């Protein structure tokens, strides 16, 4: 008799099921059909469980077990288990030996100082183990009684159709950008004769800004683009940016007649511009 398998359909209140009939109580005597007895005996979780059953059945005090009587009953069950050729686990025999030992020590005359801690009741260790086992037997039942997911409580879940997972966008560090740039420049220098010069960023930026400002407007006067409040440096930057844009053929400069105001328009608006890509 070993621990039974895993997820048996064992209702804690049902000790055994015999030919489909659930039994919630073990019989009071041993005169029960052998096949039923086998099932009852199988239901014990081990010698401690069997002992507890014997003690509880007779309403005995666990702290003051009549060891001779309990041992006799215990051995009866063990004999029946043997007769039925139940796979009798060695633990049952170990317990039988322990009971016999306690019994023999109980029979010995007690020394005068019997109350001292030096010579405890020979049953003390058995009582300790029985109490501990009973505690955890009850704890197992309490655990089983706790509200359990999928049996008592059910995680609530609502559909999320149509809600898309957000992609978390990669983070980039400014230093990474710089190092990527320096690396690509270094590589370019190796296989190209292309001279890469550092250009004043403010001109580049102003080029992009100017393109942005020209977007959507059909024409923009040059004066509008130059902002005197930026000071001379600002005006120069813008002017250089416009020259660069003209050179790069990104904008068109239009003048209706000599000395008329200069207008700029974005390449996007120039005739024949297709869509992106």
């Amino acid at each position, binding site marked *: 008799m070993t621990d039974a398998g895993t997820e048996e359909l064992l209702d804690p209140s049902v000790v055994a099921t015999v030919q489909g009939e659930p039994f919630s109580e073990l019989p009071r005597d041993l005169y029960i059909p052998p096949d039923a007895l086998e099932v009852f005996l199988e239901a014990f979780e081990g010698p401690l469980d069997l002992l507890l059953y014997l003690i509880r059945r007779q309403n005995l005090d666990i702290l003051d077990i009549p060891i001779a009587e309990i041992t006799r009953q215990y051995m009866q069950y063990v004999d029946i288990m043997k007769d039925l050729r139940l796979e009798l686990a060695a633990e049952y025999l170990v317990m039988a030996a322990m009971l016999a030992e306690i019994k023999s020590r109980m029979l010995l005359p007690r020394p005068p100082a019997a109350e001292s801690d030096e010579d405890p009741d020979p049953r003390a260790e058995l009582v300790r183990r029985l*109490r501990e086992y009973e505690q955890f037997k009850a704890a197992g039942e309490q655990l089983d009684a706790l509200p359990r997911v999928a049996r008592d409580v059910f*995680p609530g879940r609502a559909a999320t159709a149509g809600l898309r997972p957000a992609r978390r966008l990669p983070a980039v560090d400014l230093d990474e950008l710089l190092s990527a740039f320096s690396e690509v420049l270094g590589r370019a220098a190796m296989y190209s004769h292309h001279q890469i010069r550092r250009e004043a960023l403010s001109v580049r930026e102003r080029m992009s800004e100017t393109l942005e400002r020209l977007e959507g407007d059909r024409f923009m006067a040059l004066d509008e683009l130059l902002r005197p409040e930026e000071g001379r440096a600002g005006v120069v930057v813008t002017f250089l940016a416009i020259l660069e844009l003209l050179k790069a053929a990104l904008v068109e400069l239009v003048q209706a007649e000599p000395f008329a105001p200069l207008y700029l328009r974005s390449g996007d608006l120039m005739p024949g511009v297709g869509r992106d890509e």
Partner: protein
Amino acid sequence: MSEPVMENILEAVLLAAGEPLSVDQLQVVFGDDPPPRRTVEQALERLSAQLTGRGVELQRVASGYRLQVPGRYAGWVSRLWDEKPARYSRAVLETLAIIAYRQPITRAEIEEVRGVTLSSNIMRTLQERGWVRVAGHRDAPGRPAVFATTRDFLDYFNLSSLSELPTLIEIGEPGPDHPELDLPIPNQGPA
């Protein structure tokens, strides 16, 4: 439609998740500028109050907060599925209880309490369910594994911490052997 209030956002997020979410995880859904923990916890309390009497309740478990159908609806809900919920043998439940209350504990110690050899089926069941794990090895001859329960165990049994386990019943005489397990449990959160 006006901007949803925080408790409804939390309700939506918890129901979308279908599993417990920690306050940390709940903060994340608010993006780059998350509300403080306390604010989230207060909104969870308001949500819990709102749900009183409803078909769903907020429960605090070990891995966070979970919206769940309360036990009083189990009768109706269980008719949804043909399959009956798994039941566990006494051997499994006793072993689980011993590990839960006495962790970390070796196999030999479990066997000592139960008085029988521990079948490997039982430990496999408990580990496969994710309720028990090897928490380490004892520095003793043979370096035996010590077992402990997991957060999933607590989640599954509707507990937010081991201190919420039912108090061990005292058999025979008063005075607990393990007073640390008998500490009064402060009321746990809004659940």
